[in-house]
């Protein structure tokens, strides 16, 4: 009986263990990021450019497509029925800035850069390069994880702004499709947008970058089992990052809406 219970609870236990190890890796990364010496400068710039060059094109297409379809056409359809197409701007503050901007940036960065990080670190782990580094006295966390962590944090915040710009241009495209003048769109957009919207969007997105970086680095560094192992590590890394990011977004937006009543005001 006790054995069956233990077996049944094994997945739960494994989840808690994984989360705990990832927390430890996060703290280790933060500590070794601020403690001198700082040997990761060159790698940081390299990773930053690598992620930017890989993900700008998927990000632009994805945010435009998602914002044009989901909030653009669906909301414009309803608004054109009730004759209030100028209100689309206010709706885009809610959707494009608060919600879709950070979440799509995180999905694209997890799918593009996170998978590349896991594949890279996993291959190094399989070829025992990480062990060799440790034998040479080079700390893999400081030299490999910290630059990727910092690069992803900075770049998700920056890409979020591009996601917002592309999302709003998708809204403009939807508005033009319905032959509306853009004055109403911009008027409701700027009267509804607050500084809180923008900074919360960017802050949340940098945290998504941290989550993706830690999960993907951890999964890469703990890959095992030859060729199939690296692929499996990438698979698990993407799934865990996506679920963690979406769950985190839900918690943060619950807290944000509940603690900032000015976001709910009518303007």
């Amino acid at each position, binding site marked *: 009986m006790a054995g069956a219970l233990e077996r049944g609870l094994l997945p739960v236990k494994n989840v808690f263990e994984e989360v705990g190890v990832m927390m430890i890796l996060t703290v280790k990364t933060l500590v070794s990021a601020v403690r001198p010496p700082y040997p990761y400068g060159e790698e940081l710039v390299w990773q930053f450019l690598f992620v930017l060059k890989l993900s700008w094109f998927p990000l632009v297409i994805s945010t435009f497509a998602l914002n044009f379809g989901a909030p653009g056409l669906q909301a414009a359809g309803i608004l054109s029925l009730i004759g209030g197409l100028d209100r689309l701007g206010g*709706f885009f503050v809610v959707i494009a800035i608060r919600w879709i901007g950070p979440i799509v940036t995180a*999905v694209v960065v997890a799918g593009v850069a996170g998978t590349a990080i896991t594949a890279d670190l996993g291959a190094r782990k399989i070829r025992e390069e990480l062990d060799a580094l440790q034998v040479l006295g080079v700390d893999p966390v400081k030299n490999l994880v910290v630059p990727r962590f910092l690069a992803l944090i900075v770049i998700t915040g920056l890409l979020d702004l591009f996601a917002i710009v592309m999302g709003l241009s998708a809204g403009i495209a939807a508005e033009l499709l319905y032959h509306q003048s853009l004055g109403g769109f911009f008027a409701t957009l700027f009267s509804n947008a607050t500084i809180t919207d923008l900074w919360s969007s960017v802050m949340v997105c940098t945290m998504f970058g941290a989550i993706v970086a830690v999960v993907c680095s951890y999964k890469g560094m703990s890959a095992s089992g030859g060729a199939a192992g690296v692929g499996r590590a990438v698979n698990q890394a993407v799934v865990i990052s996506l679920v963690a990011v979406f769950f985190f977004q839900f918690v943060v937006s619950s807290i944000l809406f509940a603690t900032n009543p000015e976001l709910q005001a009518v303007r």
Partner: protein
Amino acid sequence: MIGWLEVPRSWLDSFGEIGSFGLKVAGQVYSGRVFKYFGEGLRQAGILIFGSALIIFAFCFILGLQCGLQGAYFNRSIGAPSLAGLFSAYCDLREGLPYAFGYILAAKVGTGIVAELGAMRISDEIDALEVMGIQPVTFLCATRLLGAWIALPFLYLVGIVIIYSASFFSVVNQVGDVSSGGYLLIFWMYQSPPDLIFSLIKGMVMATVIVLVGCYYGYTASGGPVGVGTATAKSMVFNIVAVHIIGMLGTIVFWGANPRAPIGG
């Protein structure tokens, strides 16, 4: 160091190959040649259900909570909190569920197929199949597509139940601006059976593309363990963009000209 146009260029390179490979696999299923390995197809469907169903449902649940939350607060801000059902009906059925389905399938099933087939390719198992006289494309790829077509529509329909109950929970229980009866009245009024069919079509097109792209990148993997990891990463990039493009095209085709709402002329 890669160039700025690396990703679009590699897509242009491989788009035709992915297309012809996908047509070949789909042709194997359509012509019935896959039914020689029907048992393998059923096994793949079983793997999908037992391996991926739980994570798909969990993801749908989180997105449903999010849809309800955003909708409830947006409708409070425009002074119509009782219309939160309108937002959740559109967000859940028409947009949210296909995207949630596409994201989590790309992450779990698509990359899983690449990792599996890529490892087979690297360890020369696919060549061994060919030597044994078994068509590898039919046995490995077409059976996976068949399994996806068998299992995923039902997972999608259960996902609808999950995402609806999650939205109900977050609008009525968490935010609590509207009573359950008022919420459900608006919620059911703003959707119709054709919407369900359209949404299912959108989700299944995404699933088909994801399985085919996964099969292509796994089948053509090369270069040792590193190659499998790189192929997995590449398939994810392609799938993410494909999901968004299909979602947009589906919305334009199904609801672009007619919002299908019970109001207006």
